[in-house]
């Protein structure tokens, strides 16, 4: 989420003035001197965030009779987890060398306490961590805005999972639900006990079973055997990100930061080491690797966490990417007997072996494979395996004749370090698509021009072109374009730069270029569909349209800045980008991807058109479908930005 421009952050709407809060004087909440006409004098003593300073003295002290609830809420909300982050010091203490607590606490205050919020951060403006700014001209909103407030802070995990930046997104999001539909005021405003062991111990915390009642005796056979023994998310979550080795420091301008050294998308089931938490009597639960590590505050001092082994680093998690049908639950033996899905000693790093002894699942506790279970009927014989290569293959075949390696990240990332011998080629900056001011923004320019650009980069249509980036988005878009332009042999480097490093190979900062060549490819126009074709095929039900945008776009909650309106092509199926590419550009197995598509009724026998806002994410989905062996896949190049301008059909979903 981009920060607001400074003036927009504090722009009050006229609508606000006619609300109950707008009838109070500005000073009554913020102080300052409203009689003064110069900025410095008027702002003297002014508190821009009165509810952070003191919820009780601001919102909780309102004399208006209608605000009686405010007083009750402020009395508990001042001690809520959002306001105090009280579990942070508790957990740090349990790992700490208490003789150095002052140092640890100073680091905590500098780097870990920016996330807290109070009344205003949920009901008026973006929280401080999200760089502030009114949501709607200082209007007070009874319910927080999921996009601008909740996920402005809970973004990189929860927000990305919920809206489909990572995985297929959450079924609750697809149904139009907001954060507050599950996380109600009682939970948000609840006072946390000072010695609360962790956030899941808050008795007001929402449980799946608050809505999904009587599961054990319902119609789902798996529920009868699993409810109470297995956390709901074990069966209903998708893969999620695990963070490693957080370290803190200050940048060149003295601003504090924290940074994870590695993030990995995976899924692990652990033993429940904390079954005293409300509703957590089960034996197995999903566990996420938290970024804590013994040297995380080394910037401040040495030997700060001498009791690091006291608390697990694989902790209970509740990913926000719930789906009714998931790969691990698609077949009993995807889970039962699948050692790789359960946390093992081998998954632990040296510094965390002691910490996770209660979490790892010993072989004896592994659910046994179920006999006589029929395997899923997934045909992987059509998969074009050569379209994806791994780091080891690339390393071993680097000197192969006609092999061209392309780094599709932006130039600054290339300059910081790239695979030695790779050519920098940022598809966004190479004139391959029309500009934002064009009549049809972002559509591909004509083939002659594209061939010219490719030739100048030293690529010929008959070369074997391997492309990589950071997360798949640019690499796959470029690979799709190469296929359209007539390249005959293209491959995606699985895992991109991260995969290369993880395999133990080095990078270089030495730029590399290739001599100009004649591209000489024959354009494959059948790989692209215009809007008229998309509309015609949809009308005759001759094609499936995959919309690979995020869920909030498809629901019409947000729109691309160049789109005329929010919405989606009627009849399209939303499968967000994150369903196709994992964190850092790794791909799930072809069998899993084919199964996932099948759950939407999308099988290789169908004509598939991929669409998005600008054609970019659509190209990414296109590449995966081609890799999986779909014979008739086309990119809707004109995409929503053009469709919304030129065609009347297109709905704004609830």
């Amino acid at each position, binding site marked *: 989420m981009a920060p607001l421009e400074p003036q*927009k952050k504090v722009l009050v709407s006229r609508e606000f*003035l006619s609300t109950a809060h707008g*009838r109070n004087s500005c000073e009554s909440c913020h102080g300052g001197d*409203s009689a003064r006409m110069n900025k410095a004098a008027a702002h003297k003593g002014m508190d821009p965030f009165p509810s952070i300073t003191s919820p009780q003295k601001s919102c909780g002290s309102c004399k208006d009779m209608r605000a009686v609830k405010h007083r009750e809420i402020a009395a508990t909300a001042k001690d809520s987890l959002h306001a105090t982050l009280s579990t942070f010091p508790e957990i740090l203490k349990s790992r700490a060398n208490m003789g150095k607590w002052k140092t640890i606490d100073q680091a905590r205050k500098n780097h870990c306490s920016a996330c807290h919020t109070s009344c205003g951060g949920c009901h008026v403006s973006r929280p401080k961590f999200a760089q502030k700014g009114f949501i709607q001209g200082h209007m007070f909103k009874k319910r927080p805005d999921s996009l601008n407030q909740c996920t402005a802070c809970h973004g990189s995990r929860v927000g990305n999972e919920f809206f489909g930046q990572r995985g297929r997104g959450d079924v609750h999001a697809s149904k139009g639900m907001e954060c507050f539909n599950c996380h109600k005021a009682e939970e948000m405003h609840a006072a946390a006990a000072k010695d609360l062991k962790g956030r899941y111990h808050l008795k007001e915390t929402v449980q799946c079973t608050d809505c999904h009642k009587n599961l054990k005796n319902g119609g789902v056979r798996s529920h009868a055997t699993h409810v109470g023994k297995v956390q709901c998310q074990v069966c209903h979550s998708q893969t999620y990100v695990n*963070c490693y080795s957080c370290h803190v420091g200050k*940048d060149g301008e003295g*601003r504090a930061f924290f940074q994870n050294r590695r993030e990995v998308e995976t899924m692990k089931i652990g033993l429940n080491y904390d079954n005293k938490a409300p509703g957590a009597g089960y034996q197995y639960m999903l566990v996420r690797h938290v970024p804590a590590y013994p040297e995380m505050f080394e910037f401040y001092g040495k030997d700060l966490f001498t009791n690091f082994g006291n608390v697990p680093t694989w902790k209970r998690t509740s990913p926000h990417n719930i789906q009714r049908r998931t790969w691990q639950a698609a077949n009993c033996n995807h889970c039962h007997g699948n050692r790789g899905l359960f946390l093992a000693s081998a998954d632990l790093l040296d510094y965390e072996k002691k910490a996770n002894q209660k979490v790892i699942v010993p072989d004896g506790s592994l659910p046994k494979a179920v006999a006589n279970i029929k395997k899923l009927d997934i045909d992987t014989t059509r998969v074009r395996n050569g379209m994806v290569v791994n780091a080891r293959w690339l390393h071993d075949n680097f000197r192969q004749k006609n092999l061209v390696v392309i780094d599709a990240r932006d130039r600054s990332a290339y300059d910081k370090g790239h695979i030695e011998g790779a050519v920098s080629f940022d598809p966004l900056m190479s004139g391959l698509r029309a500009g934002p001011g064009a009549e049809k923004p972002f559509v591909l320019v004509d083939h002659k021009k594209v061939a010219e650009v490719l030739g100048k980069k030293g690529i010929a249509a008959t070369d074997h072109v391997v492309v990589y980036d950071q997360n798949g988005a640019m690499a796959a878009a470029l690979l799709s374009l190469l296929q359209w332009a007539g390249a005959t042999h293209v491959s995606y480097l699985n895992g991109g730069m991260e995969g290369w490093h993880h395999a133990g190979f080095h990078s270089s900062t030495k730029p590399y270029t290739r001599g100009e060549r004649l591209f000489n490819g024959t354009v494959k126009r059948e790989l692209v569909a215009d809007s008229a074709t998309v509309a015609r095929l949809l009308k005759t039900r001759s094609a499936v349209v995959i919309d690979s945008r995020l869920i909030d776009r498809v629901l019409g909650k947000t729109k691309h800045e160049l789109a005329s309106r929010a919405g989606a092509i009627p009849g399209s199926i939303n499968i967000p980008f994150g369903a196709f590419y994992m964190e850092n550009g790794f791909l799930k197995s072809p069998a899993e991807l084919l199964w996932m598509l099948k759950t939407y009724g999308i099988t290789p026998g169908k004509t598939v058109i991929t669409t998005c806002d600008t054609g970019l994410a659509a190209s990414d989905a296109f590449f995966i479908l081609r890799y999986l062996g779909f014979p008739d896949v086309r990119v809707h190049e004109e995409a929503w930005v053009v469709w919304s301008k030129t065609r009347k059909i297109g709905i704004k979903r609830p």
Partner: protein
Amino acid sequence: MKRGQRLCYIAIAALVGLLAGGLFPAVALAAEQSSCLTCHLYESMLVKNRSVATPNVSAMQSGSG
């Protein structure tokens, strides 16, 4: 009560009434009449008066939960 005294009370009551009548809308419309809104209702005024703010979040910062 002397006539002059009565007139005096009436005059004071009238004055209090006038003052109260004048003050009431001022209280009711306090936010609207605040000098704060001389700027905060108008984007152009905010642009004109804004100070140079340095970003308070480091570019090296990882995302949060």
